[in-house]
């Protein structure tokens, strides 16, 4: 029991169970949302810097809601949301002196921290970071460590904090977990975290090699795919829109230097069915796809950073 927080009823509570989810009612109105985008089309990204004036750098990222979710917002029918769209806020504090007790460090000490809000996902999250959140923090740190010019700030620290207000689903809510199931939503969250953190670091005016952007690609098989055909490659997959994701890959990519600072590939990518004459192996195609997605995010990132620089100049001019 956590005495520093307000705890609910000591016996615990249960999440609401909807009648439609346990009854297999014929002709149920709920259907898996369909992907409306082309296979290489990304969701629109809303990225804004400087939303938190007390931090040295900050940014806010929001993915465009899928067509079904947007429809549900404008004319709500069901209380069960069909999918969700990523929303997160990132703050950067620093560079600041390390505490006295810390040992000498010739480089900047980077601390990353990813936390979901309790209401971010379908299942209520706890207040203490779980393993998934810690994992995301570590992945984010590797993605950023290769970008920041660390030796420019000896003996200093940089804190990057990300609060996820709304996370991506791991699968469609109506599906049971199957053998291919993994936390696919986390990969989209990581891509968003990388893009947001990159914008916030630039907003804090910390020297970087390049603007790093995150991108996701996935190999998915849908109801329509025939058995002999392998899964198809799509960019920026929303897990709620696909029956099963075979494999997914997220990269943190610097377009200017054509470098990848972080690569995370999950699942079986061997059975990909690519276009005719495509000689690439599954995972190569997957990584190329993720890089393409990152390039797309990079264009948004440049705009946001430009905006941040203009704001900075305006402040400096008074």
């Amino acid at each position, binding site marked *: 029991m956590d005495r*520093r*927080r*307000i*705890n*609910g*009823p*000591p*016996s*615990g*509570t*249960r*999440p*609401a*169970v*909807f*009648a*439609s989810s*346990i009854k297999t009612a014929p002709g149920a109105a709920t259907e898996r949302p369909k992907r409306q985008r082309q296979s290489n089309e990304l969701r629109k990204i809303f990225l804004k810097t400087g*939303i*938190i*004036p*007390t*931090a040295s750098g*900050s940014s806010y990222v929001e993915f465009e*809601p899928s067509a079904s*979710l947007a429809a549900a917002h404008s004319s*709500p*029918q*069901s*209380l*069960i*949301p069909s999918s*969700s*769209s990523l*929303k997160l*806020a*990132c*703050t*950067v*504090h620093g560079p*600041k002196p390390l505490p006295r007790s810390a040992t000498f460090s010739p480089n900047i000490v980077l601390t990353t*921290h990813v*936390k979901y*809000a*309790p*209401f*971010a*996902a*379908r299942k*209520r999250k706890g*207040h203490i*970071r779980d393993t998934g959140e810690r994992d995301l923090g570590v992945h984010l740190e590797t993605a950023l460590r290769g970008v920041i010019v660390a030796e420019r700030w000896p003996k200093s620290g940089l*804190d*990057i*904090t*990300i*609060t996820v*207000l*709304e996370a991506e689903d791991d699968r469609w809510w109506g599906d049971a977990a199957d053998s291919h199931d993994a936390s696919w939503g986390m990969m989209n969250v990581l891509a968003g975290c990388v893009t947001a953190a990159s914008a916030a670091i630039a907003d804090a005016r910390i020297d970087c090699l390049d603007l790093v952007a995150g991108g996701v690609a996935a190999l998915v098989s849908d109801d329509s795919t025939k058995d002999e055909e392998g899964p198809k490659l799509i960019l920026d997959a929303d897990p709620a829109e696909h029956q099963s994701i075979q494999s997914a890959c997220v990269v943190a990519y610097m377009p200017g230097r054509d470098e990848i600072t972080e690569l995370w590939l999950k699942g079986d990518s061997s059975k990909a069915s690519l276009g005719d004459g495509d000689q690439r192996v599954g995972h190569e195609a997957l990584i190329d796809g993720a890089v393409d997605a990152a390039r797309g995010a990079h264009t948004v990132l440049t705009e946001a950073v430009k905006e941040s620089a203009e704001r900075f100049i305006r402040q400096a001019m008074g």
Partner: protein
Amino acid sequence: MAQTAATTASQQQPIPPSLALPPSQFARLQPHAYLLAHLSPPASSNQPSIRANGRSPLQFRVTSANAGSLTHTNGSAVVRVGDTAAVCGVRAEILHTDDIASWSVSRPAAPESNKKRRKLADTNQKPTQESADVATQNNKEDGSEDDQEDESYIQDFNLLVPNLSLSTGCAPGFLPGAPPSTLAQGLSHQILSLLHSSRLVREDDLRIWYQPLDLGAEDLERRNESEQMDVDAAQNDQQHKNREIKAFWVLYIDIMIISLAGNPFDAAWAAVVAALRDTKLPRAWWDEDNEMVLCSEAVSEAKKLSLRGMPVASSFVVFEADAAAGWRAVVIPDAEEEEMIDEAKRKGLQRRWILADPDGYEEGLSQERVSVVVDKKDGKVVVLRMEKNGGWAVGPKELRQVVDVSAQRWDEVKLILEQC
């Protein structure tokens, strides 16, 4: 000192550039003098007293609110007060009465049936006891019958669970991942106690009932014959006897302070109220076959919470011209001193200012804080909570002024919350 510095700087036209400090540097080096110089401009300049952030002393920051944007919540809101931003999400979960250890012990009968019976008795008999009469009158005034005793459910079973988090990187002082700071714990508890004392959420909205199917029609008839009761009353009674509470909704109210620039309580509370106003609970019932509570997913069947009023919080700090005021031992001023202060005021020499909606800079410079929560019912201002600490500058007279300002603020916030 600040005054003289400011005036001499403006008088000596050719300022040596090496000595001139930009205002932001001066604000950091001499925060107290900087704010004081703003609030007490030289009498010759004819400038009004203004705060360092450009607001007049009793002006609040620009507030905006937006509700219902988070997908996985029953109700949500984002409230921005100047640079302070709070996100609140309300999530409803179910607490079965079987899981409450003290349920059968503490409440053997459904309270509403008792109530009904008592009311029936009241109307049938001549009201002999004055107290009972007063009680029913009070109930009628409140607009609902079930206001009195059963509000205790919300407190007894912790049906409202507010938690405020500051470890979102909102300000440099709060480490992410660390346990909630003293400030965060304090704010969570303030919100909880205010939710309880203002009785904002009606317990009636949180109950999930079970009405067993009426199988025994014969049973009813038999009773009718033997007891010679009025059929209507008996049926009514029967229905309420069979009806039982099977579960409660528990509202997890989580507030993330995304950006902290002073006065988190006002923003957090406004976010809580806006989110609760946005909250929709699905229709829920006890399903005998599955032995669990089921909910309907249809939005048309979902019900909004019916809140009691719209409390609005306003906070103030007192800024003392004497920089060492916070360090001295607190002595209650005697009549002479009071006179001196009054005299100084008449001469136009103000020594202390009440500042509404302080930002982080002003909070750091003041000791005394006043926080008032008001609501308006039928044009009447109701003070729901009043907290004052850290000094003696605010007396009854000033408090009245503070309450008046808060009442004006209520009108502003009401417009904002109703439009979101």
